[in-house]
């Protein structure tokens, strides 16, 4: 056979090329996703290099009454809050908390919900019914209300907050994973794997899960965004993270009384939330397209 007819995509690979690379290539074409990625990258840098940017104890935690409520300026880029703490420093350190809370709570939901969803989807039948009907109970209570109830019960702390947001997102993840697994499960390559003698767990781990990742990743990205929002909302009703931890949501909620005269106190943490959530949403949307097999 002549190989001249190979499409140019088929140029022999010397190295193994990953699908991730393809996804990345497609993702790169989406301006908004790139904008989102850049923003998130900046926030990640802030989180990682926070100690280089600002001093935690002195800038973010220490009270400084003389310098309280200073408008943004050269000394304090984003101004200072009612205790004279540097808002910029607090936002920088808040990045750690907010992203951490978002990611961990989603991880909790993903692990628990994902496992349940995968089991339900793969085995179907009675097991599916039992799992999904049980989750319907969780699903019947709107997410944030469930989170409020749980935090109220467990007490407000970073850990409990993550647990609450995590648990309340379990049914969502279970549904998405289940749907993804279902859509993969009936494809013939799963049957083909069974035909060559693969066992169930091999099939789930090697074939089903990798192929159902796309919608799950997208959902997870979007949920990190909403977890950050949920944290802020919980702060508003006094169930947020304990002070003086510089968390965006509690900065926003705590500073809201100053919205009239010292707008910047809530403006910057608000912007931080908006930008993070926005960029996660942009990435999520971008990924949705990039991972869509139909656009391959």
């Amino acid at each position, binding site marked *: 056979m002549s190989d001249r007819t190979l499409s140019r995509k088929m140029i022999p690979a010397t190295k193994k090329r990953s699908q991730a690379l393809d996804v990345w290539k497609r993702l790169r074409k989406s301006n908004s996703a790139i904008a989102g990625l850049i923003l998130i990258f900046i926030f990640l840098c802030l989180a990682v290099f926070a100690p280089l940017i600002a001093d935690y104890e002195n800038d973010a935690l220490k009270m400084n009454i003389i310098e309280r409520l200073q408008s943004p300026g050269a000394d304090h880029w984003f101004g200072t809050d009612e205790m004279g703490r540097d808002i910029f420093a607090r936002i920088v350190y808040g990045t750690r908390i907010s992203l951490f809370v978002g990611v961990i709570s989603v991880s909790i939901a993903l692990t628990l919900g994902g496992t349940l969803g995968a089991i339900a989807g793969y085995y179907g039948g009675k097991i599916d019914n039992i799992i999904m009907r049980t989750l319907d109970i969780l699903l019947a*209570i709107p997410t944030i209300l469930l989170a409020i109830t749980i935090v109220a019960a467990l007490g407000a702390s970073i850990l409990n907050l993550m647990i609450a947001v995590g648990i309340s997102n379990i049914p969502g993840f279970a549904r998405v994973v289940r749907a993804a697994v279902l859509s993969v499960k009936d494809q013939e390559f799963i049957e083909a794997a069974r035909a060559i003698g693969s066992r169930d767990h091999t099939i789930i781990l090697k074939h089903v899960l990798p192929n159902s990742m796309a919608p799950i990743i997208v959902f997870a990205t979007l949920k990190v*965004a909403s977890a950050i929002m949920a944290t802020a909302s919980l702060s508003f009703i006094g169930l947020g993270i304990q002070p003086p931890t510089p968390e965006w949501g509690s900065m926003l909620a705590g500073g809201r009384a100053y919205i009239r005269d010292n707008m910047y106190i809530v403006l910057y943490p608000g912007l931080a939330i908006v930008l993070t959530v926005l960029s996660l949403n942009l990435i999520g949307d971008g990924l949705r397209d990039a991972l869509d097999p139909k656009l391959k």
Partner: protein
Amino acid sequence: MIKYVIRRLMMLFPVMIGVIFLVFFIISLTPGDVATIILGDGATEERIKDLREELGLDDPLIVQYGNYMIDLVQGDMGKSYSTGLSVAGEIKQRFPNTFKLTITAIFLSVLISIPIGVISATRQYSIFDNIGMIVALIGISMPSFWTGLILIILFSLKLGWFPSGGMKGIMSLILPAFTLAIASTASITRTTRSSMLEVIRQDYITTAKAKGVSRRSVINKHALKNALIPAVTVIGLEFGVLLGGAVLTETVFSWPGIGRLMVESIQRKDTPMVLGCVIVFALSFSIVNLIIDILYAFIDPRIKSNYS
């Protein structure tokens, strides 16, 4: 169809039983003793003990749960621990307000997002599309209490167009409903857009065009109805988000709804009231989703035939 609706309604029972148990369980984890809270400061040990007995607080959780369920079946949701008022009466007074708010919000966001989604899809990658999406996304990225405060400052303090809060007439409904709507606009818009994009690639759209149907009618008559099916699901789910968002919005806008009541009750450890609120929330959320499922059947005849 009727059978299906009845079956779905029957399904609500086990779910509600589960919901109540779940909440019962969660609340039981809360530290703090209800009796001391009810009696407040300076109550004697004895009185506390008596009250605990009276309320059955010393019974095992499952017994308390059972008793609650028995009362509930008889239509008795108990009395608020903190005010002594009947929970059912309180909820009857407050729930319609939340309902009014969320329904208006849903209508608002549907009214905004479906057209934007459709136009965005038909002009994919145009300026309108991009701006529409970015605006919707920013909407979803703003904490609603923040949006609410900003809207109050802008529209009621600075411009004086709307009252800053309370519940007096249509005007006072607009700001809170809009605040709530903003958050769900994004997802509805996006779903509409992507399902619209999906639909306009379908063969039957080409068929319609090949029949000579004008562009406008292709969109309105052929594409929209099909594109609405996934959008409708999202609207159902968004209703849950709205109910949750109502908790914050009701506080900011002094809206006497059930969301605020629930949070206040949680803080007072007013178990019967919390349970009442959660039941109503869960029930209305489930019923809305049931209605949505039935709506499907009207939009999509394929589903209807499955039900009968």
